[in-house]
């Protein structure tokens, strides 16, 4: 996750979210390593079923601990996780932790707003989990039906010439635009071809360079939303570089982040000096080999 090249290949979200372990970054596609699950709900369901617990009477403590331990293994794994995926897990993990900590409001008494928020978070998480489980069960039914269906072959034979000649003049039934849309759908390769992207030389974007632009903008405005800071970004790569630049600036203690709600607008406030040079590490701009070597030292 350290190099822009890799980040650019992943489906980077423009949402300003917590990146995976900035300290290490060597988190992995551990879904392949540990178990065959697809997303946080799937993992949660698997954990619950492994403990032979009904989702409706789940002992949260054990499941939360195990869920968190999976997340922790991110740090030990080899490859990068993309931003989206990590966040998905973090959101669920955070909710679970909250619930565990609060012992799920045993008395049912709601004393303050924090309790209420917790209750809502709990309900929402379990409602979503139950909904996900429902669709997962439906998916199994779909699979059975498709399998059964693939075993019967439709009679699809041409009309005898005798009858064919009686046919009224044919109607294509669609206009040329709709016809083209059908062609588009049918001609799109069915199997996703494995394209080599080696020949694609993405222009490298320097984090340090983007940092200076961000600093300039923030000094002028004082406060800006992330959206505003990336308004003129031509490529996703630039968005990513600016986001990394902001994290660097945060580490330098010259900016403050505010986000009222998750997925909400991220506000950045300039807290550094009005002028003078701001040091930004060139860690992100180094070529991959250099970083590997550096890590081994």
């Amino acid at each position, binding site marked *: 996750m350290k190099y822009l090249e890799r980040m650019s290949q992943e*489906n980077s979200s423009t949402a300003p979210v917590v990146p995976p372990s900035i300290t290490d970054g060597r988190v992995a596609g551990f879904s392949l390593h540990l178990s065959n699950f697809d997303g*946080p709900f799937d993992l949660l369901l698997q954990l619950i079923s492994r403990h032979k617990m009904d989702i409706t009477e789940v002992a949260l403590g054990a499941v939360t601990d195990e869920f968190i331990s999976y997340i922790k293994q991110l740090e030990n794994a080899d490859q990068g996780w993309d931003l989206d995926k990590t966040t998905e897990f973090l959101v669920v993990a955070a909710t679970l932790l909250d619930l565990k900590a609060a012992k799920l409001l045993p008395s049912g008494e709601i004393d303050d707003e924090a309790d209420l928020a917790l209750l809502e978070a709990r309900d929402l998480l379990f409602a979503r989990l139950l909904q*996900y489980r*429902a*669709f997962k069960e439906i998916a199994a039914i779909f699979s059975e039906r498709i399998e059964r269906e693939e075993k019967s072959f439709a009679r699809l034979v041409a009309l005898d010439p005798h009858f064919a000649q009686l046919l009224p003049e044919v109607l294509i039934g669609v206009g040329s635009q709709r016809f083209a849309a059908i062609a588009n759908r049918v001609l799109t390769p069915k199997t*996703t071809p494995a394209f080599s992207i080696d020949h694609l030389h993405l222009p490298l974007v320097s984090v340090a360079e983007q940092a200076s632009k961000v600093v300039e903008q923030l000094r002028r405005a004082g406060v800006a939303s992330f959206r505003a800071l990336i308004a003129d970004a031509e490529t996703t790569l630039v968005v990513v570089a600016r986001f990394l630049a902001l994290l660097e600036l945060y580490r330098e203690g010259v900016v403050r982040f505010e986000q009222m709600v998750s997925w909400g607008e991220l506000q950045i406030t300039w807290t550094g000096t009005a002028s003078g040079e701001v040091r930004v590490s060139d860690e992100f701009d180094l070529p991959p080999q250099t970083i590997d070597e550096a890590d081994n030292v």
Partner: protein
Amino acid sequence: MSEVELHRCLEAILMVVDEPVSEVVLAQIIEAPTEEISAALRTLADRYEQEQRGFELRQVSGGWRYYSHPEMAPLVEKFVLDGQQARLTQAALETLAVIAYRQPISRARVSAIRGVNVEAVMKTLVNRGLVEETGIEGESGAVFYKTTSFFLEKLGLNSISDLPALAPFLPNVDGLDEILSTLTD
């Protein structure tokens, strides 16, 4: 019209069609009440099964058509070699399930329900003709998706309303509250 006669008419027409024919069209051509046609088709289909025919008559995506019997699949596959598509992944099946029950639906909503990014999976479903775009929401500009008639055919369904009810899989709201209130650590 006698039952034998009616069955004869149905068999003759169904033998020449290359797509499912609706009961209404059959009723028009044969000039018999739709209910009678409907009942006759069902009787005919049942008889074929009892007589252990190698073919079957089934109602799929709004109409009736002859198919080879599923138990004969290994044999028929020797003839119809192509047409075998790669199996759908678990992720694709789950995404398809969400779209089928919540259509029309945007990609973001599917993502929210599944808890993961579904971009690649959606593309696969569109490419395989199971799902198609159905318009764009004015404000957000989000593209909406729905299942296709090929999806119905692929699942052997007559219409979307023939999908198993989702409700039994989802606890009702009262139940949910009760369940949640019993949750303890």
